[in-house]
């Protein structure tokens, strides 16, 4: 169905007398935002001076005004969203000269992140992947909490260690180190994803180390001490406690945003040590000329990425890169891919119509993990 093939419900409402009963009938029995083909209609009801959509789609004006249905308290806005889009947003409601950002009260879909939560609209064709949901058939792994003293970071470093279901100390496992590991578990459902993908044999049995940063804007921005912590302290500490395979192809660094930078930067400081990288929406800012426009937090990153662009090196074997097309970082990530490929690294790149958020990273995790650590899916029939 396309938007033009059928009259939109909001148009039908506006063409008749917009009585209180008509508004009630329009709102009743429908889910909002109302997705009709490519058209998505947002609605807010209440007294206000103005209502605006505040979304996180890079490329569209960040603020889109709702129209008020004359003589009523109904506000509406219709946007065209490409198929399979997933968009996080808030409503900005202005009352008595004061603007508040709120979640859409008519929309039960929310996504959480470390800063709170947003409303979410699923455009036509988007579905929450089935493998991200709890599956009672999947055998559950466990997460143990640990800490180690890091000389490199001059602090006690908290880590979580995920052991797959049916973990056996006599077997050796690949290692995945996840930057912002706690957030990945909390906001991207990483444990459920691992349980499901390992149970379904799409991903091989793994030991996963969840790291927690100190000041992530410092530690993740090409920080020598962070790379040293990972490589000279954390991996040996993990190897002493758990049975890990001692080969680059069985060691992966994963991260999103600054965490992706930290992964590539650490691999660059220890070339060949990490044979697998999983980089999601990396903040790979660079400048072709002059200073970067992203602010001082990016200064180290720009220096690192500029240097990498000047002298790209084969720092790993296999690299998975993903980015949302609605992110401001899409340009940087698209630019990085041919650069990585030019070094001879095996690179897989995936885009999706989503933004810089944890559920985007959740939805792309299957593509990354199954490619970096494929399980014997065709062979196992239990």
């Amino acid at each position, binding site marked *: 169905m396309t938007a033009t093939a059928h009259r939109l419900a909001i148009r039908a409402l506006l063409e008749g007398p917009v009585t209180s009963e008509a508004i009630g009938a329009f709102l009743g029995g429908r889910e909002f935002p109302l997705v009709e083909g490519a058209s998505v209609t947002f609605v807010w009801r209440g007294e206000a001076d103005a209502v605006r959509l505040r979304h996180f789609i890079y490329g569209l004006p960040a603020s889109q005004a709702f129209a008020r249905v004359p003589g009523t308290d109904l506000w509406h806005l219709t946007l065209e969203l490409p198929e399979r889009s997933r968009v996080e947003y808030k409503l900005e409601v202005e009352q008595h000269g004061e603007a508040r950002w709120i979640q859409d009260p008519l929309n039960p879909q929310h996504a959480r992140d470390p800063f709170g939560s947003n409303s979410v609209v699923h455009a036509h064709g988007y579905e929450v992947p089935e493998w991200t949901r709890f599956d009672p058939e999947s055998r559950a792994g466990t997460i143990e909490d640990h800490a180690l003293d890091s000389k490199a970071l001059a602090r006690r470093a908290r880590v979580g260690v995920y052991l797959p279901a*049916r973990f056996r100390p006599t077997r050796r496992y690949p290692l995945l180190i996840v930057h912002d590991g706690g957030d990945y578990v909390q906001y991207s459902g990483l444990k459920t994803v691992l349980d499901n993908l390992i149970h379904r044999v799409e991903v091989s049995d793994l030991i996963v180390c969840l790291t927690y940063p100190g000041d992530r804007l410092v530690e993740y921005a090409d920080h020598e001490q962070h790379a040293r912590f990972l490589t000279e302290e954390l991996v040996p500490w993990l190897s002493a406690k758990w049975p890990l395979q001692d080969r680059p192809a069985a060691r992966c660094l994963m991260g999103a945003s600054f965490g992706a930078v930290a992964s590539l930067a650490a691999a660059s400081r220890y070339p060949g040590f990490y044979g697998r990288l999983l980089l999601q929406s990396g903040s790979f800012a660079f400048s072709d000329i002059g200073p970067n426009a992203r602010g001082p937090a990016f200064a180290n990153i720009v220096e690192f990425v500029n240097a990498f662009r000047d002298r790209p090196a084969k720092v790993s074997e296999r690299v998975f890169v993903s980015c949302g097309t609605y992110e401001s970082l899409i340009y940087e990530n698209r630019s990085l891919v041919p650069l990585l490929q030019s070094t001879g690294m095996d690179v897989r790149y995936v885009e999706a119509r989503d933004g810089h958020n944890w559920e985007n990273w959740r939805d792309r995790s299957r593509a990354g993990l199954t490619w970096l650590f494929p399980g*014997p*899916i*065709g*062979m*196992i*029939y*239990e």
Partner: protein
Amino acid sequence: MSSRALAFLGPQRFQPTLARAVAALGIEGDLATVTAGWQERELEVEELHEHLGGRAVNLELHRRAELVFQADPELAAAHHRRQELFREMQEIYVLRLDAMLAACVTLDARPGHAQLLEQERAAAMDAVRALDLAHAARIAEVHDEFDARWHPLDRPALALQRNEIARLLDGVTAVAIAGGHVAALINRLRMFDVLGLAGERPVLAWSGGAMACAARIVLFHDHPPFGSGNAQVLDHGLGLEESLVFLPHARRRLDLSDSTRTGRLARRFRGSTLAVLEDGAILTWQRGLGWNADDGCLALGEDGALTPMRITIGAVS
């Protein structure tokens, strides 16, 4: 078909039916269990053996194979080379298979002259069947060449373990074969010629174990993270049953909403019954009684739908 009694079962994790099948076949005495498909978890058989009331002894084929490889490095190296060859053969076969099945898919969807298309579709599917047969034949040749060159059953390290297995089998009345990694399982069963040692003892098998007992092992998964997801012939099985191809966990692994695709799979293996055994299902064969399929035994038809096997079982027996 051998005269031994057989039972093929649905997945056992949530609805174990092995004990019921043992009773249905009138088996008394202890069972030998084969859990080599579980690989390094082979010995975690407490639950399975408890289900059998403790009347079980594990043949430990996975562990025994490791002992053989440690004691006979020459055989281990030859085995490793052969497995590498199999891997490469499988990759090349899948390359050709994907291209041939892509032609089938295109022709199935193409409008045009009905009679002409029907002939071309049949020819395209015949080419796929010929490739499947050629691949299986080449695999069999490699097995034969390996056996002729290395005489594995005669080598002392393997013979030692085989004697142990024979001794254990002397004390049991039937063999139960669990699923797991089907390539590892068929490899170990074949390596020790377990069925040769088991004589006419009944065999009960499920999931990958059932696949290994059939004449052909067909790997399948319609939703792999990467790749075409086309079903592929892996190897010959033990051939306890000639006309069945087992598709365990079909509801999870097959896209049953796409009847064109599932129907194409059934047409490809025309002449065999594609058997789907649901949780709790029991399919038995006994000399003089023939086949008995309960309601959980289904067959995938050329229309892409699952139907009760008792309708199609005549073709099997």
